[in-house]
């Protein structure tokens, strides 16, 4: 089993979740 690949996929997914969180607040802040 390739641990490094599993961790990279997890990191990408985690960063995606963080980007949605920050991006959503920033976007709404901008449109208001």
């Amino acid at each position: 089993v390739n641990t490094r690949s599993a961790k990279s996929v997890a990191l990408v997914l985690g960063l995606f979740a963080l980007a949605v969180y920050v991006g959503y607040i920033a976007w709404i802040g901008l449109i208001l």
Partner: protein
Amino acid sequence: MSSTAADAHDHTHHGHEHKGFVAWCLRWITTTNHKDIGTLYLMFSLAMLFVGGAMALYIRAELAVPGIQFQNPHFFNQMTTVHALVMVFGMIMPAFAGFANWLIPLMIGAPDMALPRLNNWSFWLLPFAAALLVMTLFFDGGGPAGGWTLYPPLVLQTGDALPFVIFAVHLLGMSSIMAAINIIVTIMNLRAPGMTLLKMPLFVWTWLITAYLLLLAMPVLAGGVTMLLTDRFFGTSFFEAAGGGDPVLFQHIFWFFGHPEVYIIILPAFGIISEVIPTFARKPLFGYASMVYATASIAFLSLIVWAHHMFTVGMPLGGQLFFMLTTMIIAVPTGVKVFNWTATLWKGSLSFETPMLFALAFLFLFTLGGFSGLMLAIVPADIQYHDSYFVVAHFHYVLVPGALFGAFAGAYYWLPKMTGHMYDERLAKWHFWLTAISVNVTFFPQHFLGLAGMPRRIPDYATQFADFNLVSSIGAFTMGFSQLLFVYVIIKCIRGGPKATAKVWDEPRGLEWTVPSPAPHHTFETPPVVK
């Protein structure tokens, strides 16, 4: 993987060598084994069923007869709010996360989850978050009382509890996001040789799709509640009209999370039903590929229907039409699923053990909840039904005989695999019939109450609603106490009973039935080859 799996191994043996309560606690706190963590999730969920259930019984006791029976209306509102939050985030989601932990590695032939330490953290955030949430009931000003939807400006009137509620929601969301990441990575990276995506059991498929939904929806909820926090404490006005914001904006954000959340809860139940029905019909699942595509379609549609929860805010006609039609289209892939389950039963060699009974009740009663959902999707009708007991009846039909019955079916189906013993079939059937009858006694009259005009989230009502409310309360207490039987059956099964074979049932399909019962602590350290 090699280092993490070795750590999990060490922890377990460490626990076995030392006797005593501290060692026992440490074994469960530090475990990285997917079966241990699955068990922790399931036990936690069962405990929360009784915490949330006690709140439900308080609500039904208050509503049994007209007039104010206990305390004050403000406490009643706290009960409806915290009951919902506990049941959604503390009970039903962890129940399916427990099955995911136990079964996904077994079903795809993996030795464990891909990230065992993250898995441990995902679980252990939960008890603290749930404790924090329940503790807010004792704060100055009480717990949150504006409903689980946390709409501003009402929720901003919460006392000292507000930041703690928001922190608890953040922790619950973090736990879900980490579990979702772990599930996606496990399914994408750890499948045994030959286990192609379209050979995976339906339960694994539904969880893969659910995990992506979690990843899309939970950060949006986190963003929404963070904005509530800054509105209350840091002078922003995201949701305050006086400062240029808009309270309706929060409703959009909440339901952009909230509607996928409904499917996050129900899709794993679909997966369990898709495992149970073929086993007890002794036939392969009808239309496997169409089940996968239907699940993916439901997940996609769940992201574009959110404003059907807010038809009464006054949105443009185009918006109403869009959200009404997309909502109705969900009936198509859902219909495909119900058709496939029914077609699996067709000419099958049926037997009616408890998991099958719960699956069949699910089939009838979830469909009933789905139909009332279609009624609510019709804009002019929804303007009448909105915020009435009809809505309460609808979502309890999809969540209780829907999602919860899915979890019960799964519990009885895999309990012999988990414990190594057969459960007491006679008592389990009693549990089924008591629950299936009382769930209808509780929630069916609520349709009539709603259609007759009884609003939701009120502690008192006009006397014309008295009869159906009393019937509903009698049903609720019967259902609540029947769950003690479930606990007894589980304890009895853990402590002993007829020895379960590896296959347990006549014709089960899937790799989990190739390992002994109880499933050994470590399985598939050498991956099986799937043909």
